[in-house]
């Protein structure tokens, strides 16, 4: 399955470098302490410029998802994942049967290469013992 690659901007370089190292980054605001995704220099909650990168646990729950059955991306499963740190991002499910996935299922980040080799964060479901 080929995933399309991100269209980077100067501020996203650090984020994608970390992804190639298998690390999912979030931004955290030093002023209001909240974390957010997508990352940007200015906190979307309080507009502070005092933001810094933090490593996400990579654990979260499925907020919602779909399986594309026709057209571009057929067979992929875009999903909104709410990370344990709070933010929700659209990432997508991999290495699990979407037919078995339910909203609220626990997931863990799993990186996979996109078309140009850039690793991108996807998520796979955890079984009841908490293992991917």
């Amino acid at each position, binding site marked *: 399955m080929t995933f399309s690659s*991100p269209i980077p901007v100067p501020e996203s370089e650090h*984020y994608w470098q970390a992804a190639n190292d298998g690390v999912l980054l979030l931004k955290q605001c030093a002023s209001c302490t909240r974390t957010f995704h997508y990352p940007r220099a200015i906190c979307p909650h309080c507009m502070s410029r005092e933001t810094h990168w933090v490593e996400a646990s990579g654990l979260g729950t499925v*907020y919602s*998802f779909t399986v594309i059955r026709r057209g571009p991306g057929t067979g*992929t499963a875009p999903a909104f994942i709410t990370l344990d740190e709070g933010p929700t991002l659209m990432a997508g499910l991999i290495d699990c049967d979407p037919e078995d996935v339910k909203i609220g299922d626990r997931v863990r980040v799993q990186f996979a290469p996109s078309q140009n080799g850039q690793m991108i964060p996807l998520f796979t479901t955890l079984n009841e013992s908490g293992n991917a």
Partner: protein
Amino acid sequence: MADASAYVVGIYEHPTRHAPDISTAQLHFEVACGALQDAGLTLDDVDGYFCASDAPGMGGVTMAEYMGLRNIRYTDTTETGGSAYLVHVNHAAAAIAAGKCDVALITMADRPMGAKQGLGLGGVDLSALPDLAYSGAFPPMPVAGYATVAKRHMYEFGTTSEQMAWVKVAASHHAQHNPHAMLRDVVTVDEVIGSPMVADPLRRLDCCVVSDGGGAIVLARADIARRLNRPLVKVKGGGEAFKHRCNETFDLTYSAGVWSGAAAFAEAGITPADIRYASIYDSFTITVIIQLEDLGFCAKGEGGKFVADGNLISGVGRLPFNTDGGGLCSNHPGNRGGMPKLLEAVRQARGEAHPAVQVPDHSLVLAHGTGGSLASYHVSATVILEAE
């Protein structure tokens, strides 16, 4: 003191749904002429011009020259996607009330089919969205986002595929009377449920059509409107609102219609119960259910039950909607459905909808739309019209 209200005095919808042999600029010109002719006005009467990025070139700057608009003293090219034209009506009414213009022209036209542009928005560079720098994996595909919205709505409120199908069934009942509609066959709930899955839980017949085309609308100051030989349709209230993903609580089950609707009803001094006809943006069936809830036609979570059993069918249900067939059956020009929503609301307010779908009491009607995506950020806009 002079009446500061603005009135809709002219409308026109281009009959084309596939336009390989006509430029987008000419489509804008033709819909402008059509709406002005409907009003009994000329291009020289227009002193306010409104358009979004579907207007080719440099928007209003280009189109004013192309269309020979010589007397413009006010312009607004606000871009909010498919809801832009509803926003333009509200802005035009405000400009007229403030004396900034007397006759406002709003045009919309594009040809994603004829020009083979696909699902994008003409004039909008979606590849420059800042969040795309942090996402990969999926091609921009509106249906995927709306599918996640639908799935969450089903999860939280028990909304069913059958209930969503009723939205399409109602639209098809209306489209059979519209000779220009792309899909004129009446469909059943079973046929919607039986259509191929596109992105769970949305099936092909849960999705709007992709079409070329466009339309225009002309508003004027009250004294001008009274001189013209057309039914008087007043802009009674309006609202616009933004919603972002990055709120304190991530929640895809409501839209900015919660706020744009409340603002419009407050300005009009009426409640949802007073509305006899509603044009509701229908990119997908779930879009209608969520917006009906947000506008207050039913409680949050009750939208599925509200639309079931033909409640949106004219002559059958409590709230006839999209009596031209809407985006689900008639057209969705340029992947922007706001203009047709306005035009059918004006036809209803005038009593000029097709007799088979015209609501008997058309004193108060509403048009509502959402531009962007319910799955991410969007702008909702609401317009309430009153027939005098």
